[in-house]
């Protein structure tokens, strides 16, 4: 049953990803990407990462993709229906990319052995009282520094967006 759900989700996700690359219209591509992101979010649930699944959907679908679509609306989208979608050398890139994908899927992944211990995560989660609790316990102790540092990244992004987004008056002086 889980296998079936996984195959459906993965199938939809990969097909939507292919459509992101192959579609002509940027808005359509953006919607296909939302489908892929949603499927990845659902796969996170299968992997016992419920908190991340929610985060994925809230931030990726709810924030980033909305932002992209807003940007698309601000920009004249007539140019996006352009026939010359690809670079001239694109066939070589595609061939190399497909070879890379095949190599990873056929040679590298099956030949790799990992120390797998799936019960450990379930036990840890049960012990902590849930995925969110478990994450929080680590996030605010061992990874406290990273957590605080991430706030600086968001701060710099805000400064950047305010600076770049401010309109210039015709004389070139900033308002």
């Amino acid at each position, binding site marked *: 049953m889980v296998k079936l759900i996984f195959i459906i989700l993965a199938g939809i996700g990969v097909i939507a990803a292919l459509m992101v690359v192959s579609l002509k219209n940027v808005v359509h591509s953006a919607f296909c990407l939302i489908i892929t992101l949603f499927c990845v979010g659902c796969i996170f649930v299968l992997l016992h990462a419920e908190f991340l699944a929610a985060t994925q959907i809230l931030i990726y679908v709810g924030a980033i993709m909305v932002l992209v679509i807003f940007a698309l609306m601000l920009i004249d989208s007539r140019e996006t229906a352009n026939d010359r979608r690809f670079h001239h050398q694109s066939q070589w890139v595609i061939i190399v990319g497909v070879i890379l994908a095949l190599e*990873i899927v056929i*040679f*590298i*992944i099956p*030949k*790799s*052995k*990992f*120390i797998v211990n799936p019960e450990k995560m379930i036990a840890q989660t049960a012990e902590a009282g849930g995925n969110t609790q478990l994450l929080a316990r680590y996030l*605010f*102790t*061992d*990874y*406290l*520094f*990273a957590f605080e*540092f*991430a706030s*600086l*990244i968001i701060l*710099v*992004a805000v*400064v*950047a967006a305010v*600076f*770049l987004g401010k309109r*210039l008056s015709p004389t*070139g002086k900033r308002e």
Partner: protein
Amino acid sequence: MQYNFVVLLGDIKQISAEMVIILTIVVIMLMDILAPRGDKTLLAYISLGGTLLAALVCCTWNGVEQSIFSGALVVDRFAFFFKLMLFTITALTQLMSINYVKLRNINRGEFHALVLFATLGMLIMVSGADLLSIYLGLELNAIACCVLVAFLRQNVKSNEAALKYFVLSLFSSGILLYGISLVYGVTGEINIYKIARYLSGQQNVSHPMLHLGLVLLVVGFGFKVAYVPFHMWVPDVYEGAPISVAAFLSLGPKAAGFAVLVRIVMVAVFTLKVEWSILFSLLAVVTMTLGNLTALCQENIRRLLAYSGIAHVGYMLMGLVAAANYPQLGITSVIFYLLCYVFFNIGPFGIIILLCNKHKICEFIGDFDGLSVRSPLSAFVMTIFLLSLAGIPPMVGFVAKFLIFMAAMKAELYWLVAIGIINSAIAMFYYLRIVVAMYVRAPKPGLKINASPSLTIALAIMVGFTLLMGIYPALFIGFARYSIATLL
């Protein structure tokens, strides 16, 4: 896992230099908001003061090596060396910017804050002991640099350069993250020292996934360090960005990137040294050859410096290849090269700023025609920098290159040394071309020197150190050797 408040305070004390930088940023941003119409030159001096204070605080480190924040960061000699280097780069950039930002009408509080943000990101990169902190530092640096590149907002070139920088930076972090995820999958750890412990405990480390992860990691860091295949942003960004930002980018991220690269390959995956030395030797050959050959046909000095910078990274990678067999010698040569590169590579950018005025930027080789007549001193200073870049004997560039070639010879990489020497000979040509333009050609009308006290101080420091390191390199080589003694 148990976290104690006293431990936390002790850890914070260890990063007091970074805290000084953060406080300076806060002060600058608050003052920027409180006095929106005023002159921002004061903020430039505050940011410079903050950097110097942070460097001073950094120097009070008592020499005790430890890992802090549950292994997120490490305080060691290696990080100390790179922190001092980064403070130097930042201070030089700030000195060069003070007058330049007024000239280009970009004298804003954000500029000074963003330079410090970028520095902060690099400080965390060089002391990061876990791939997560390194990645976060790298991203902070990337975002701040990206905005700095786009700072000339009316200039389309600046915008395009920023866009290219942004896309390639995100592209490289995508590759880097995938590489990190594979390394994490194989070793089960994201801490560099724990990865090293895991791998040294393994009998057979030739794991295909780990190899792929390593390649992706190295390729991903290539963006910061600017080697092939992520060197494409360099010329466009140097050409489009404000000049002082280009000077900053030509060294800061490169130094931080090399620090991370050295920490990863020498500590985390040292057991895979056969694999990565092959990878680096290929990258070194391609990078230096491509950089030098493309630099030959550049007319714009900023693009020329970009390609020459790529070529210099190629030489440094040679040192890294040698480090696989002779860690001490190889890494010493690499970080000594970086240290002297700070002074003679920012220098030419300073000269370009010296020659630019409100209406015109002298950035073509033709603009330098007859500089020796107009201003003998600046022509002489430029010559010192160019001769150092070219690696001509009395200069420090020669000592640095010699150390790298010696390390490579000792590691019996004769073919690599041969390619390196041929490349150095090619490089001689394009550096001397500028010298010839300055001394032989007739002067052009309209060439004017626009010196300001801060820029003069910056140039004096750079010339002073270039000459000092050329005369007495042993002091600095000793410092480099000291700083890596506990890393290896």
